[in-house]
């Protein structure tokens, strides 16, 4: 009870620091010094330094997300805590992928180290030992003996047979997301429909974008596409996905979607447009959950989704300024996010 009140208060306080779409768009037209000043004023001092310091911007964004997640996780207990911790661990799964890619490309330890995310107190992998493995096979075996065994085991088998890095990546991502769905399912009964809706929009979006990309960009056959999608119980269920993967083109897929998605995506003519619309709709919904009296876990999750989106928007602005890109190009990059 006390923990819920604390979490609610914390989320409300954190929510004041979120960047609205208009604020981000306004930053595009400001000078780098003004952007830096605005970031400082909002307490984002580590990002205000932009590209002038050694540590990568991505690393600083993730460090900030981890720092805030740590505060939000603190009052949670049991399966709710496990859910949020699992959500945070996707950064560590990306470390797993970075390690595997480095081993495949023969990168040395010195090149690899800066690319790995420092998970701080959330770290469960012994990165030092993993970076010292001889080859990808020994790395995978070491990973299988660690906390991500469940995720890595099947990916290793698939990779050993195919030697295809795409399969490795896709299998790892799918295994992680199916784990997330399992964790969410355990708490969706508690925090009510709000968390279910957030998860639904997240997983449905990923499934639909992957389906379109694999089917029409990579031209994979329907059975393979279906196999690569995340097994979930949300709006795009197994039966519907099986039907969608057999359809001949993007328009047919969009027309066969449930009404809520069909209306949202009407007229979208490529995968990029579909992605943008789904992401924007998910953000609008997350903001609604954040403003509502939804259970604290759902609000915390909505906040984390929005915070990450906002910080990535800031990164787009900072990177655009750093590379000297024209304002309209930075605006378009933001448009993808907002």
């Amino acid at each position: 009870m006390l923990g819920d009140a604390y979490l609610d208060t914390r989320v409300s306080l954190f929510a004041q620091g979120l960047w609205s779409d208009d604020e981000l768009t306004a930053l595009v037209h400001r000078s780098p010094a003004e952007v830096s000043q605005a970031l400082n004023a909002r307490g984002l001092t580590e990002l205000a330094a932009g590209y002038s310091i050694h540590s990568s911007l991505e690393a600083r964004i993730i460090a900030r997300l981890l720092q805030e997640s740590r505060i939000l996780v603190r009052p949670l207990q049991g399966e709710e805590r496990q859910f949020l911790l699992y959500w945070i661990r996707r950064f560590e799964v990306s470390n797993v992928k970075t390690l595997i890619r480095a081993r495949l490309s023969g990168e040395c330890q010195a090149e690899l180290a800066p690319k790995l995310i420092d998970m701080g107190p959330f770290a469960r992998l012994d990165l030092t030992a993993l970076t010292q493995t001889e080859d990808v096979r020994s790395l995978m075996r070491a990973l299988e003996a660690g906390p991500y065994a469940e995720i890595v085991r099947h990916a290793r088998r698939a990779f050993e047979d195919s030697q295809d890095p795409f399969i490795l990546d896709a299998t790892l991502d799918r295994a992680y997301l199916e784990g997330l769905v399992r964790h969410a399912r355990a708490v969706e009964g508690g925090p009510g429909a709000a968390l279910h809706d957030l998860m639904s929009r997240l997983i449905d979006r990923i499934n639909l974008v992957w389906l379109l990309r694999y089917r029409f960009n990579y031209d994979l056959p329907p059975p393979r596409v279906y196999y690569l999608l995340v097994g979930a119980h949300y709006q795009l269920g197994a039966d519907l996905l099986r039907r969608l993967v057999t359809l001949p083109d993007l328009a047919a897929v969009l027309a066969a979607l449930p009404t809520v998605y069909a209306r949202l995506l009407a007229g979208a003519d490529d995968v990029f447009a579909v992605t943008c619309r789904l992401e924007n709709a998910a953000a609008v919904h997350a903001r609604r959950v954040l403003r509502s009296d939804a259970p604290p876990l759902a609000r915390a999750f909505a906040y984390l989704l929005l915070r990450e989106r906002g910080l990535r928007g800031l990164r787009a602005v900072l990177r655009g300024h750093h590379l000297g890109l024209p304002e309209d190009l930075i605006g378009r990059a933001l448009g993808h996010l907002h």
Partner: protein
Amino acid sequence: MLRTLPMRHVTVYVLASEAADTALVLAAHGQFAPAADGEVPWGGNPAESYRQVWLQATSRLQRILQWCGLEDGGRQQTDSPARPQRSGPSPLEEARVAAAPTLAELEALHAWLGEVWQACSRCHDEHLRLEAEQKRLVELEQTYARLTHLDLDVTRLLRADALLKVRLGQVPSAHLKRLQEALALAGHVLIPFDQAQEMSFALVAGPRPAAAGVDDLLTQAGWRELPVPQELQTHPAAARAHLEQEKTRIEALAGACRQSQAEHAARYGARLQEAAWRLELARPLAEAAALGVHGSRQITVFTGWVPRRAQNALVAALEARLHGRYRVIAREPHADELDRVPSLLAHPRWLRPFTPLVRNYGLPCYGEFDPTLLFAFSYVLLFGAMFGDVGHGAAIFLLAAGLRGRLAWLRTVGMACGAASIAFGFVYGSVFGHEDLLPALWRSPMHDPQQLLTLAMVAGAGFIAATHLLHAYNRLNQGQVAAALFEGAGLAGLVFYASVLDGLHALYLGQGFGPYHAAGACLALGAITVHRARTHRATAVERILVALIETSEAVIRSFANTLSFLRVAAFSLNHVALSFAVFALAGGLGGVGREFTLILGHALIVVLEGGIVAIQCMRLMYYEGFARFYNGGGVEFRPLRLGGRETSLTVGVV
């Protein structure tokens, strides 16, 4: 004893060619903790490639030693680096005069280890392959046994057919349903017929023209074809014979693999030990390179921290090895780097057993008050006060004196608590709960519980007041004058606490809560709130909210912490009550039953109540004490050492 040892920041300039030997000297000296330093003119790290090669070579060596079964061959004990077996000087002496390998030598060693690993890895891979094959053979045997029970002709099932393509194989059970659904999209069926651990055995059938299209899908799902050799597609007896034959073949190959492993151990053993010794000699520079090595092509600079009292010895060690070809610059820590200065504690031998209990909470920051002495004194005193009994105390003393093995470190703490319990036993006049055997030096807790509770409260208030002073002292040491004055746990908090307590005391005496008390409390509270709002970096609303919440939390906490000390009196009363209960139970029985109940009851009191009191004392120290003044976020002093950097928390008083 009450603070961390004073440190000096040391910069050592040496010729680049002597960097590895210098690191060896620093490691043999054992009091130099490398640390990065932004003031050194060269930003590059000339030892980074040395470190990379060393890391890879060490990792490779460990794998080889593990494969050859020589894991212990390289190292006898932690502080004694691996070295070839030879008579003569000690490892430490030998390392002082030995030459550390140069980068070229290290690369050559790494290359040689690569060759050895190549030789070993062929056998290693073969070993893994055979293990997998053995496992599969066992599964195949089970599967074949089940296949024979199916009402299916396997030979006909697998016969090449123009229309139908049938495969037998295994797939992770977790993927079964999804694969089944995906295959259905390609007009195929999947029928599982067996399961072994996490794998399911299944039959996949579909139209031959579409069969090629599902190959990628099956690969992706981790499908493994189940080879059903021609021999197995014959008479069951012949199939059985084939399986036996396979088993013999795999065992023969595994035997050859083991022999090869032993040969590798024999062939490379001595050189591997030599390699382990060379890598130990290279370890200091490799480890220092991670933090405190800078330089150019000609000069290498080591930066780090040395206890002030060990500085001269360090210079003498460098002189003995480098004969003037070095330069040492030492300085006091700057104010802005105090949070990075490592903490090293100097405790007398008798105090060291208490160090792990304090360390369990945290390590003092550099310059922070070291609470070990306070902890030891207060903990033992509280234990005695809560568990005062000459007989039970003596039992604890004797039990603790007998602790050996893993619990040996608790011996001194236990004996001290036992002694305190005995001392308070005399104060309370209690021996195994009997209050009529000894005259009490003061009185039994049960004779005046109210006075005991009052005393506990007063002691608690004194303790809390002391924590305020310690908090202010720590903040002043860190140069944070405002924090020392205005934080809730600092002097302003003490003024508030003292004003309210004194006011309440006056109220109790019927004199009323005076205006001075109210003014002192309000002023202090205002100062705390304003200070918190000023120092918290956030939006205005969050600042105000945080300041209000944290101020009220600090106020509530001070009084809650004080009330917590009531447990000191409560447990001393509890001890008497428990003893009464044991006597009452035993009194109801006669003869052996009475004796048995008395012995069991006292044993329970010593073990259970003793354990609970020990935990309660710890809780009082941590939550009512440390949490109020002790940061505990210090940086460990981790000097370069032969045999690897180890945490050095305490040193003996010289």
